[in-house]
């Protein structure tokens, strides 16, 4: 069974790989306990099921999301980006981080099915799976400019629980 510490390493390494390859920004673990959010934040989530089931999420403020989207699209940070473009980029980011996490854990945990990503905008956004769920959180510093929270909310599926 994968430990929480192991999943945290997988989550951080996966986020780092995606940022280096697709966002062209350096990402490192931050010492902060919570991201310095502006008034509103974006939460990109993607659910998964298998011997581990749950939800991977990325939460950051709008300025951070705008910069991430601009970098992914190869545009200047000051470029006009619509809300739909920014949300789409954050959803794809969640999708790619989840895909990278999945590729690193499925040898041990077996096949994992992943949903289509979704993105919401609001304040104090959090995913929940009720009691008994575990959560791994990585607070990440992006280029020394922004903070984003990556989280993996999960519980064991049938074969891990009984097997």
């Amino acid at each position, binding site marked *: 069974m994968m430990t929480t510490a192991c999943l945290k390493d997988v989550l951080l390494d996966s986020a780092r790989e995606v940022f280096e390859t697709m966002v062209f920004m350096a990402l490192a673990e931050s010492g902060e306990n919570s991201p310095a959010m502006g008034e509103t934040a974006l939460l990109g989530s993607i659910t998964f099921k298998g011997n581990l089931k749950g939800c991977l999420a990325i939460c950051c403020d709008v300025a951070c999301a705008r910069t991430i*989207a601009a970098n*992914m699209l190869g545009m200047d940070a000051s470029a006009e980006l619509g809300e*739909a473009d920014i949300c789409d980029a954050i959803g794809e980011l969640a999708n790619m981080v989840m*895909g990278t996490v*999945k*590729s690193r854990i499925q040898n041990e945990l077996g096949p994992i099915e992943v949903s289509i990503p979704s993105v919401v905008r609001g304040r104090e956004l959090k995913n929940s799976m009720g009691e008994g769920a575990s959560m791994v959180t990585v607070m990440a510093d992006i280029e020394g400019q922004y903070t984003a929270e990556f989280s993996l909310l999960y519980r064991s599926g049938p074969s891990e629980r009984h097997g």
Partner: protein
Amino acid sequence: MGKSLMIVDDSATMRKIIMRTVRMSGLEFDRTEEAGSGVEALEKLKIGPIDVILCDINMPEMNGTEMVKQARQLPTCAGTKIVMVSTESAQDLINQVLTDGANGYITKPFTPEQFREKLTPLLN
């Protein structure tokens, strides 16, 4: 004669990223098209042939594996090279989609070098 490319992905952002990565890879296409779903891609393929398709797997309405199966039934798609571009990395799935008619597979996140490496042999 110039080559044509179609990018099939439900995310407009990802379609733009893929297009940019193709350009960064140094590969050149005279004509490029986009489709936001497998259904839209099949409609476009019925109109005329495309040389290369880069296709996502996890899409609503019709996923990429189903699109490949149906595309291979079309006379206009006989010579089309189809490369899947997906976060899915399970070897069983990759083998299945190659059996169903795809010519290659690129996992997200990707680099321009990976595009060049996978697509160049298919273009010659």
